[in-house]
């Protein structure tokens, strides 16, 4: 087994956070696609509590949960770019907003493909509000991390591949409500370390439609 292994799923924005961090740091790793309908013995052994991807194995030791993996990557490979800044308050803010992405963006996004009617309308309003808060946090900066990719950029970037899906489901345009965020998304996609990790937005939308078919509200 390679020294660094990532157990992942092609379309997972959580897995993609890890791929971006590893690429940004220039860390070589082995990518292992997981079949979640038939979980591998390695996955079950590495994450017995949740049995979910992503899992990073470093020297055979497992690290679970995407934001914990990204922090681990930043700490275990303390080279540029430093994903978390040096200033204690700025670090706390980066953690806060990355946690916000987990609490709000993923939840709203799920409701957008899953729900209909009034619930869908609420999900759309909630998503616009959440993206607006992130737009405000970005301010006029190129990246949330300032001049280069930071922890919050890594946390949010994979979800930009889902913007088209959110827009189709909710009937709104990210660029109209959050022009700064839309520009940031383009900027991220122009980088190799991000672009190589993200799924094509059309493929994401196709995938979301199959999820809706299987699990969506009737």
């Amino acid at each position, binding site marked *: 087994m390679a020294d660094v292994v990532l157990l992942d799923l092609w379309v997972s924005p959580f897995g993609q956070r890890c791929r971006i961090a590893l690429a940004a740091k220039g860390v070589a790793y082995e990518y292992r696609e997981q079949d979640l309908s038939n979980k591998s013995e390695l996955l079950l052994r590495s994450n017995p509590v949740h049995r979910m991807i992503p899992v990073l194995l470093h020297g055979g030791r497992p690290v679970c949960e995407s934001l914990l993996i990204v922090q*681990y990557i930043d*700490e275990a490979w303390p080279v540029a770019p430093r994903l978390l800044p040096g200033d204690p308050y700025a*670090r706390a803010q980066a953690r806060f907003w990355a*946690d916000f992405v987990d609490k709000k963006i993923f939840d709203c996004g799920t409701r957008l493909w899953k729900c209909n009617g009034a619930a869908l309308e609420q999900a759309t309003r909630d998503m616009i509000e959440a993206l607006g808060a992130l737009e405000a946090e970005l301010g006029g900066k190129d990246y949330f991390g300032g001049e280069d990719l930071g922890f919050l950029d890594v946390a949010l970037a994979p979800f930009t591949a889902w913007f088209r899906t959110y827009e189709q489901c909710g009937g709104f345009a990210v660029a109209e409500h959050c022009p700064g965020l839309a520009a940031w998304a383009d900027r991220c996609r122009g980088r190799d370390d991000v672009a190589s990790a993200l799924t094509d937005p059309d493929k994401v939308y196709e995938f979301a439609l199959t999820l809706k078919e299987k699990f969506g509200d009737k």
Partner: protein
Amino acid sequence: MEKAAAAENKAAPLKLLGSWASSYTHRVQLALRLKGLEFEYAEEDLGSKSEALLRHNPVYKKVPVLVLPDGRALAESAIMLHYLDDAFPAARQLLPADPFDRAVARFWCHFSDDKLGPAVGAVFASTGEEQEAAVRQVHENLALLEAELREGAFKGRRFFGGDEVGFLDVVLGCGSYWLAVFEEVTGVQLVDADAFPLFHAWLRDFEAQEEVRETIPSVDRLLDYARGLRQMLLAMAAGAGAPADAPTAAPPSAAPPAPATADIAVDI
């Protein structure tokens, strides 16, 4: 005159906005005490939140909030614990130094917040078969922690942090004291010393720590509070139309019902 002026110019201490029954508030109070950091405390009336709270935590509008001397504020207790380590590097550090150990501590912090806490809350908010299912969930969760203490990441340790209380002790501990309170109020056994000997021993040692005794409210106060809350939760469940002992099992991460309870910080 000069000395008095200098004293007045001394930076204001940290200020913590919290709620006396909130485990998340206790985490931060305990962390500050363990680090020997001075702070001011302001009790929030969660039924009538202060302008300061709403201004400092506009996103979630919850306690605790940590206000820094320069007026900037932080929300989310686990993030505050990280901040205190970063901002006061000379003070006792709560998180371990090694990146892998940090990842493990953070993992079980999430487990406490996302799995164990809500499961215990579900026991407290339900009765009958729904409660039985919630109790099974709590036992499954405690069994995972017991296994880590027995043969896993925390094998051979007195505390999760090692010889001394650390980040995960603060997170798990400020919440676990509710277990005995809920057992008393609901009549349900959650932490059996025979089934979970290491967890039981850890909790006993944690609660004996001086700083913990200074932080956790008296058992009588907690019992009073819990009894009142339980009555209210059951009344709400009955009022919502669903029979209190409906056969459907509570989902593993079920939180106490109704938006109001999110503010009534039995958020263990």
